[in-house]
């Protein structure tokens, strides 16, 4: 009996213990990046036979909902691809002592380092696999057929809404404009209207006049039928909804989403119609999009930090980061890669033009927009925004009530954290 118990205990230990040389990566994909990543890791394992890398391909929802629970329990993968980088930053490993050249990381990925480490920390926890920027896409074929000129780079939100409405009416298309159902997506335009979420001390402040002005316009566009009401009222709470399928199906004139849609459009729209990336429309204050992206981070609970650092050194290296960006059509974070120039692997001239448009739009990103990805209250603000704005769009609550509720939702979370 004792032998049986000992054997069972040994089996239990084996099942929960990582062998030296084992590295497990939790990875999600929006498009083709999973295939590219597998290819890169296969090459790494051939060159480093003493390290075995296992990639767990999971849905984005798994990373969002299950990874935090695993990390809180001291478990989880050794490396993970994550968007909630700041909110979970207490679980990331400081790789500095294990990296081949920490200065290389600071030089190339230092601009986004604060997005993935606790406030005040100097830790190197990972790097951005892609930099994204929110921005608009227009169905150029519909504009051409309607004889409506595309608004220029300095056009305002109102200019775009008016032009898209004209096109939609003329071409009998159901939706003129649509924004993804996401607080992050509402934030770029809110900042362009002069909005701000943080006070001088970096704490959340009550919703201000600029943000209120944009939300008021946005709700009006939904009620007028200019914006696709379906996206915002199609769910409750903070559930994410994209309007990309409507754009791909030619049912939407102007779509405000982000640079990550480019590979998706390239493969799904093909030659069906012409489309262009427009950058972010202007508000009274500025013309900013919201930066963001997904980062690859090392997890503190790993049993093999040296091997993890080796894998990360490889993936962050200039030739690999360059190849990853060129094959996935993602905007890279590495300064060396950007300085060396990129040859994106696509024959589609629309793709190259769109990527170029986002690179150009990144020059007008406002200082607050650059701060928000590293701000610990961003997700709280985004959650309150999307929940309450959706209720206002659905006509369940007035705009005034929506503003009050956004303030009280954020204040409750801040009070709880004290």
């Amino acid at each position, binding site marked *: 009996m004792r032998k049986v118990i000992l054997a069972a205990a040994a089996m239990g230990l084996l099942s929960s213990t990582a062998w030296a040389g084992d590295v497990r990566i939790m990875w999600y994909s929006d498009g083709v990046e999973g295939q590219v990543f597998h290819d890169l890791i296969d090459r790494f394992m051939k060159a480093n036979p003493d390290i075995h890398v296992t990639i767990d391909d999971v849905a984005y929802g798994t990373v969002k909902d299950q990874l935090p*629970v695993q990390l809180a*329990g001291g478990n989880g993968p050794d490396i993970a691809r994550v968007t909630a980088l700041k909110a979970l930053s207490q679980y990331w490993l400081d790789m500095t002592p294990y990296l081949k050249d920490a200065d290389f990381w600071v030089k190339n990925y230092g601009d986004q380092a604060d997005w993935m480490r606790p406030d005040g920390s100097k830790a190197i926890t990972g790097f951005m696999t892609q930099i994204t920027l929110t921005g608009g896409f227009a169905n150029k074929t519909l504009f051409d057929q309607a004889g409506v000129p595309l608004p220029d780079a300095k056009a305002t939100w109102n200019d775009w809404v008016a032009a898209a409405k004209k096109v939609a009416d003329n071409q009998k298309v159901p939706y003129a404009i649509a924004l993804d159902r996401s607080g992050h997506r509402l934030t770029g335009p809110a900042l362009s209207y002069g909005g701000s979420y943080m006070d001088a001390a970096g704490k959340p402040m009550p919703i201000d006049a600029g943000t209120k002005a944009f939300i008021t316009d946005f709700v009006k566009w939904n009620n007028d039928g200019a914006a696709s009401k379906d996206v915002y009222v*199609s*769910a409750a709470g903070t*559930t994410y909804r994209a309007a990309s399928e409507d754009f791909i199906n030619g049912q939407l004139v102007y779509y405000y989403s982000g640079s990550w849609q480019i590979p998706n459009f390239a493969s799904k729209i093909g030659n069906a119609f012409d489309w262009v990336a427009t950058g972010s429309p202007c508000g009274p204050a500025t013309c900013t999009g919201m930066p963001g992206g997904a980062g690859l981070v090392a997890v503190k609970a790993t049993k093999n930090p040296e091997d993890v650092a080796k894998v990360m050194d490889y993936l962050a290296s200039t030739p690999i980061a360059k190849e990853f960006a060129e094959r996935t059509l993602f905007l890279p974070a590495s300064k060396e890669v950007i300085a060396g120039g990129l040859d994106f692997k696509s024959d589609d001239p629309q793709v190259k033009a769109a990527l170029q448009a986002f690179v150009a739009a990144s020059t007008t990103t406002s200082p607050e927009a650059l701060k928000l990805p590293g701000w610990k209250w961003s997700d*709280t603000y985004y*959650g309150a925004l999307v929940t309450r704005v959706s209720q206002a769009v*659905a006509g*369940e609550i007035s705009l005034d009530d929506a503003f009050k509720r956004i303030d009280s*939702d954020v204040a409750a979370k801040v009070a709880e954290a004290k």
Partner: protein
Amino acid sequence: MSNRHEGKEALPASRLSGLMMVPVKAVMQVVDVPLRAWQRLTGLTGMASFFLLPNMAVFGIFVLVPFVINFVYSMTGGSEIFLAQRFYVGAAQYRDIFDCRSYLDPSSCVEDGFWVSARNTALFVVVQVTLMILVALITALVLNREIIGRSFWRAVFFFPVLLSPVVVGLIWRWILQRQGLLNLVLYDLFGFEPYSWLTDRNAAFAAAVGVTIWARVGFFALILLAGLQAIPKDLYEAAEMDGTRRTRVFFRITLPLLMPNLIVVLVLGLIRSVQVFDEAYVLTGGGPGTSTMYLTQYIYEKGFASDLRDPGLAAAASILMGAVLVVLTLVQMAASRRNEKQGER
């Protein structure tokens, strides 16, 4: 001749079963000694408890302990998941939920989401259960008649019960979405412009009610069908000989004798309706706005899915919902006991 034949077959069968009993008897003999000793020690009641122990252990580990942990969660605050990292807040979560100027106006409550979803759930339960009992009763009455292809129709009505609720939700979303099958058919047949069924408050509510009825009615119709088939035929024959009208037969014979089954259907339907989640969540996501967000979705969103995650509040809401379900279960048990007593009489 037939007896001789049966005898020939019976002999090997009994040998076989005799052989099979050998290991069983061996085990019985081994366990008999300690069990007898245990019985002498604990008495008959102790033995009953001993045999109930495995079941109680499973119940304790998978039901009782999580329930207690859930209750403890409801007394804590913060967005951390593990209890050790959370802080004690006493009854604050319950106070927040009940902090309302008027319970009839969710916007006057601190936790407006709870009261919106509670109101939606109450409306859903009343409409869905009423309609479902009606549809199940009509279905059972029709399927109890001598109709052509009766077995086929019984299978047709029961088939959706076998589907996963998520699959049910996905199928109907595919049918009802703006570019879905329904709009396509309506456009082809009548030239109707596409309509967003799932983003119109009333249509989305009707869809949630209709889809859950479609998915569950077969199960409840089956219970009622069993009840209908248990009603003695001679009662109907006597009524026919007396020339009693059909409606009178239904209200004086069928309905009273079907009442025990109807009560079971009512209580089970109420319990399942209060727990509505999967089909509605996949179908409407709780929208438009929050018009089809029910209590279970509110608890799920607060506990796991939202950027404004609050596990303590979710636990408190689930305790309150559990209390409602306990009341409904007690009603079902009382109704079952009443039926048993009536049956004995």
